[in-house]
């Protein structure tokens, strides 16, 4: 094979793999965002900061115990609790009025950031590599922990599917998303469902953060970048559609990644925005929007 083509293929495999791995992590975060919006009409601007706290707590867990799983579980448990407190304490009065929720969640986001700045500090930290091997495939070297992260993300997505489609709480959540009044009339405690959903969304964000933490730098402003991408995905997929979110993640992230072969990564992000605009022109409610 022509060495030029071989090198291009190598790079193509590298960026495509990378794109899919990011798609799985971002899907976790975006699904949380989508669930929360679909059920409570909360536009959660603080979602990126929940993701950031997931990474920060995972970092603490790993630094203190040396065990990656402790970090992941700590991040999810704490952020689940924080999710319940936020939903009950700050968002309950404004649920269903998206404009108000934007204002409230911006405030929550700032508080989360500043608390991280005050406790975790302002300098980025690097998580020790939980799986320090290199995988070689078709002449392409790839960090083993990224493949590991992709595996864990896939398991988590399956777990989420089982939770939503095979358990009674999942059924209540879906029922409340479809028709809140009717679900309430049928005896579903919508109030509890709200709390559980917000906590679930926060836990998914935290899991995303914990899984991303070995790849990215743990930093108190790390949520911004991901929030933008998560919103692109949720909007492309169709607001509130879980299937749409997953599909959109699996399209947008690999697309953006492959584009970096031709343009700079910054321009690739612009292409993601253009893609979003194109989708919205053709399907104004997103790919799977109701």
């Amino acid at each position, binding site marked *: 094979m022509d060495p030029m083509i071989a090198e291009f293929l190598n790079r193509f495999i590298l960026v495509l793999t*990378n794109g899919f791995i990011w798609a799985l992590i971002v899907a976790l975060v975006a699904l949380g965002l989508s669930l929360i919006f679909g059920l409570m009409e909360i536009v959660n601007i603080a979602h990126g900061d929940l993701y950031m706290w997931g990474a920060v707590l995972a970092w603490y867990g790993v630094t203190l115990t040396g065990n990656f799983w402790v970090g992941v579980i700590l991040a999810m448990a704490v952020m689940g609790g924080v999710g319940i407190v936020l939903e009950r304490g700050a968002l309950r009065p404004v649920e269903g009025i998206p404009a108000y929720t934007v204002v409230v969640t911006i405030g929550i986001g700032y508080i989360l950031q500043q608390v991280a700045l005050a406790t975790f500090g*302002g*300098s980025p930290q*690097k998580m020790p590599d939980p799986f320090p091997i290199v995988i070689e495939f078709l002449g392409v070297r790839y*960090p083993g922990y990224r493949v590991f992260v992709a595996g864990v993300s896939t398991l988590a997505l399956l777990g989420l599917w089982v939770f939503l489609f095979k358990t009674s709480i999942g059924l209540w959540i879906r029922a409340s998303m479809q028709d809140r009044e009717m679900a309430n009339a049928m005896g579903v405690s919508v109030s509890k469902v709200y709390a559980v959903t917000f906590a679930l969304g926060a836990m998914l964000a935290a899991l995303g953060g914990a899984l991303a933490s070995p790849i990215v730098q743990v930093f108190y402003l790390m949520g911004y970048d991901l929030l933008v991408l998560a919103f692109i995905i949720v909007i492309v997929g169709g607001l509130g559609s879980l299937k749409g979110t997953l599909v959109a993640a699996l399209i947008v992230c690999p697309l953006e990644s492959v584009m*970096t072969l031709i343009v700079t990564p910054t321009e690739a992000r612009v292409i993601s925005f253009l893609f979003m605009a194109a989708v919205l022109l053709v399907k104004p409610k997103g790919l799977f929007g109701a």
Partner: protein
Amino acid sequence: MAESEPSRRTALKVAVAAVVCGVIAGVGGWIAGSSMAPPRTITKTVTGPGVAKTITETVTKTVAGPGVTKTVTETETVTKTVTAGPKPSGPPIRIGHLADMTGALAVYGYSNNLILSKAIEYINAHGGINGRPVELVVEDTETKVATGTSKMRKLIEYHKVDVVIGSQHSGINIACNPIAKELKTLHLPIGEAYATTAQKGNRYVIRINNNVREQVKAGIEDAIKYVAKKWVTMVVDYAWGWSNEEEFRRYAPQYGGEVLKSIRVPLGTKDFMPYIAQIPKEAEGIFYAFFFGDFLSLIRDLHAVRPDLKQYCPICAPEGIDTETLGEAFEGAYVLSWFPRYLSEYDTPFNRKFREICGIDEKGKEAKTGKMLTLSHSWALWEAAFTLKRAMEEIDWKSKEDTPKLIEVLEDMSFKESLFHVQGEKFIRDVDHQAFMRHFLMHVENGKLKLVKIIPLEKSIYKPEVDYTKESF
């Protein structure tokens, strides 16, 4: 009228009170160690700017003992000056520090401010400047250009400082240079972008630390000799990164190097993999300019995907990071430093004394807190303070009206290696107000930055492109 006699009840009260007093005093005396020794309270107050330490001892003596019903309190104040050197007096000379205490460069801000305050403390303990005390006024730039410029004005117009040192951020430096000229105040920026003392400078701006052009020029010959011939450059996508890329591309071909590709990466990029994928296969070495998290992300993924690439970078990359924690990803890298962080690699009596005064341990950490300092940059703050002291004393600085004289004396000033110029000999070039100095090529061995060689200051000198001496004040 006859005096009424105290009643029996009153007498009893007095007697009981006396006994109670006696018991309390007795127990108090016993607790103090001896029933005869009076308890002493000593309050020490340290006053005076810096170290002309005046210790005021207030000794309170309480005379009491068992059976003594009277308590006598004597207070004696002893004031003594405990250090040598005359105490500075008169109106203070005010030095402003435009410090990046929070934001992206907060680690630098902390370290720089620590070292500068130690220098000021030292100066005050040794007679101040022209016998006058020096006062340090610190304003935080938040590592933002807009905040930095308004704080520059605040330092000069509100705090009435005589001179401004800092910030570390090149963008803030360049934005503050015109303000220095407008408000006729000497500005010693600490950032490293070339333009600060070239197209973007003016007569009120003097840089006593090195810039990117000097750094790249000083290191390039050895980089090509020790590291690689075929290069890829990867820099953070803003002024400082571009400056590194441009200078490297300018000088590499002159010493037989070749730059195959230059890649720019936005600040705070979450994933370096797409950028690493762009590195040509035939590249042997990578020259990169990133700091903190970006640097950490890069080296980890680089190690996984392209472990064959040899690394060369300015000290800014691992600055503020304990390299012993980085493991294999950074092992074997070459680093151009402006001041070795390990005492063992630059063990001069001046360096020992400097570290002792500032409380820095042998690894370049603050001894008290264990915090990693940014010593390869913070030395400049130390030297800035002593440069000002020398220049102000030479012209017998009276007030800010003397700024033109101060600038004139600084133009073409040279310094021998000393406690006050601990980084090494250097000189300020008159035309572009840029200082030139030695550099240190370091190699990462077992996580430690080991000295390979000291690069003499001549290597860093380039042709000036401006002449500020023609500018009027």
